């Protein structure tokens, strides 16, 4: 292991200053819901622990997860995490090409046997012996099995790897299946969403890299700290739902007033994700804020549940809680996760706010 650098070594090579490094540690602690007391612990871990290598592979997909990832809220967090993982293998962004790239993958597997994390974006199609997704002349499912064999743990990025997503929609022409149906003997952490929120991705990966273990998972294998609550629970339009004030048609007066989108087919009441708290594109907004209902893209089977504009029908005004919880099945860890989430989110949001207020305005005025 001695030949493997520490995270801090890697960051220094990337030209990241000590000050930025400490800032990153506080941000990470905040994002993960760990108080300020954890900041030195994270810093210590990053200075002394060998960097955990990450191999990032792509199956049947649209690359939206990578796209989301490279746009992390805190540019520093994005930078740091990218520099931590980019050195190994990622076929969309890496510098090497063709056979060199394939060789790099084999080398990484050999070199870090049993020690690396495998991040999977997209999923394997099984029909016709996997011929619908060929990487380097071989079915992706083979590459996945090979890379998984010596992985310490697997991250299933997004709805594709976690559940199947749209390419698994009826009639699922290629028989696209989620990762856990192919790899059954490794710990798998699911980070669903189409795509997942960037901060959730960096939060999960930082936690695993820093503490060398999986974060607390709910019964569906999702990190409880980010998937412990429904969109509905923290939706800023929730008071309108409770007051029975709904948008009745697109861009009506009620829409202008920001009423609840439930009648327009919003799936917020049955969707577990952090969109209404962390939001998207560096905390700017989320679908409900743009006047469109949630489509439930982080829930299993969201692509085949009737129209996205149909109202959620297995839901009554007063039965919401019990019913939605049955749908989500995320009871385990919800309480602990909920508290952690709350801390994490408020800390992260204030951190984001600072970041947004400062550099961007500074630049805009400069």
């Amino acid at each position, binding site marked *: 292991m001695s030949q493997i650098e520490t995270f801090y070594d890697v960051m220094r090579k*990337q030209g990241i200053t000590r000050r930025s490094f400490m800032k990153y540690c506080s941000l990470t602690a905040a994002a993960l819901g760990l108080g300020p007391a954890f900041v030195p612990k994270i810093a210590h871990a990053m200075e002394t622990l060998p960097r955990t290598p990450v191999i990032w592979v*792509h199956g*049947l*997909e*649209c*690359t*939206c*997860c*990578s*796209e*989301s990832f*490279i746009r992390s809220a805190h*540019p520093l967090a994005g*930078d740091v995490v990218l520099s931590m993982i*980019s050195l190994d293998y990622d076929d*969309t*962004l*890496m*510098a090497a*090409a*063709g*056979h*060199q*790239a394939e060789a790099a993958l084999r080398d990484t597997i050999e070199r870090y046997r049993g020690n690396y994390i495998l991040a999977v974006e997209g999923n394997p*199609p099984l029909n*016709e012996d996997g011929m*619908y*997704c*060929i*990487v380097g002349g071989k079915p992706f499912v083979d590459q996945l099995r090979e890379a998984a064999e010596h992985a310490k743990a697997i991250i299933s990025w997004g709805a594709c790897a976690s559940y199947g997503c*749209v*390419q698994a*929609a009826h*009639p699922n*022409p*290629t028989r696209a299946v989620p990762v856990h149906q192919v790899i059954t003997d490794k710990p798998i952490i699911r980070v669903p969403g189409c*795509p997942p929120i960037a901060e959730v991705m960096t939060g999960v990966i930082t936690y695993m890299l820093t503490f060398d273990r999986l974060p607390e998972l709910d019964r569906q294998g999702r990190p409880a700290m980010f998937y412990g609550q429904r969109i509905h629970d923290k939706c800023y339009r929730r008071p309108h739902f409770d007051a029975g004030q709904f948008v009745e048609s*697109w*861009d009506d007066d009620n*829409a202008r007033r920001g009423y609840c989108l439930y009648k327009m087919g919003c799936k917020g009441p049955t969707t577990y994700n952090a*969109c209404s708290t962390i939001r*998207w*594109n*560096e905390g*700017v*907004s989320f*679908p*409900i804020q*743009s*006047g*469109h209902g949630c*489509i439930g*893209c982080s829930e299993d089977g969201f*692509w085949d549940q009737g129209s*996205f*504009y*149909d109202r959620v029908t297995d839901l009554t005004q007063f039965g919401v809680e019990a019913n939605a919880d049955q749908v989500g099945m995320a009871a385990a860890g919800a309480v602990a996760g909920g508290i952690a989430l709350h801390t994490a989110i408020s800390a992260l949001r204030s951190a984001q706010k600072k970041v947004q207020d400062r550099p*961007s305005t500074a*630049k*805009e005025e400069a």
Partner: protein
Amino acid sequence: MTRQLLVGPFNRVEGDLEVSLTVRDGQVAEARVNSPLFRGFEMMLLGKDPRDALTITPRICGICSVSQSAAAALALADAAGATPTPQGALAAAILHGVENLADHVTHFALFFMPDFARPAYQGRDWHAEAVNRFTAMQGSAARRLVEARARLLHIAGILGGKWPHTLAIQPGGVTKAPDARDRVRIIATLRSFRRALEETIFAAPVEDFAALATLSDLEAWSSGDAGLFLRIARDLGLAGMGPGPGRYLSYGAYPLEGGRASRQGVLTGGVPGPFDPAQVTEDLSHAWMLGETAHPARGRTVPDEDMREAAYSWCKAPRLGGRVVEVGALARQAVDGHPLALVLAAEGGVRARVAARLLEIARTQLWLEDWAQALDPGARFLDPFELPRHGEGVGLVEAARGSLGHWLRIENHRIAGYQIVAPTTWNFSPRDGAGVPGALEAALVGARVGEGEETPLSVQHIVRSFDPCMVCTVH
């Protein structure tokens, strides 16, 4: 001496791609392009509520999802006989323009330029600068632009809730009615993106690059990363590398109240002509697809599970009036009649494609600034629409990579037919029934391959100059 080369997988392209080459006497004599990824979106859409196309089709692609949603919305609007409200169309154009601009910048900084930082180019007088600016994910320009791009996409956040896979565009407009504060924020965000462009790619006012009119103007441009690219292009002869078919197609970008912001049409050998949608066909002779050559409104998607020998790609071969056309920024700018783009279209190689993309970056920035000023928070942004029980619709838009069309048929309120012809389907198509190669296949013929070169650099440059999006190609 003849040898066979199989190049791929290509990284730094969106999705999977494999090119098989016959190399004779140090030159590519024949190329076959294979898109080895198939998901079957057109099959999954059948039987669904037509409105679900707005959610499902964007998920074809994580980098051009707004283009897909704009095309789906237009196809539905066409079927419903609806027109977006003027301000709705404007907001949709801003969303779409932001995505196209972000895509062009990503292509230049993260996908195309890093090839010049390769060790194989050591010793060239521009190599050190290319390494410094564009080494994959570490170069100073690459980092600065990734950051600027993330900030630019705040606009997609403001207008669309989230990006990628934005949901806001609807047949009648957009779901988000921006208020005065949103408008100001959009304007400020565009101003900061302009600054990033004027400090990196152009290192000069955006207007100056947009105003270039001749090849000698272009060649005299020396500032910024655009200048670096032009220097490299001169040294490596990128102008003569990878010529296209010389026929260009554009559906016209950004449908607005008074018509499209850029012209629709076809340019053949420098002569402009009208585009006739009835002339579009998809040929299946070399695709692992079953069926006859058909217009997309009548087309079907039935994968050939035997993967017959005569075929070599999942990609169908679209043709316009039976002929190969090239689509993309070069086609769009040339069809629009921009003087520099017209001379570049006559040149037609790697340099022309990349320079036209830079030109489009400049022009799109200017358009976006005008459109943001024209946003009127008091106006209507979305009108209701009603889909017919039976009907047909076509949605034609210009994605960053070129012409994107959705052809929709509704029967009994359900989708009965849905065909998508994406930009890279045009550019990276396999051969047709007459054996005529697709645009990239033809462009690769003549490319130099050095002795012992297994992943020829010229091939990398030519492939990436088209900015392929393989996940859209086959979908």
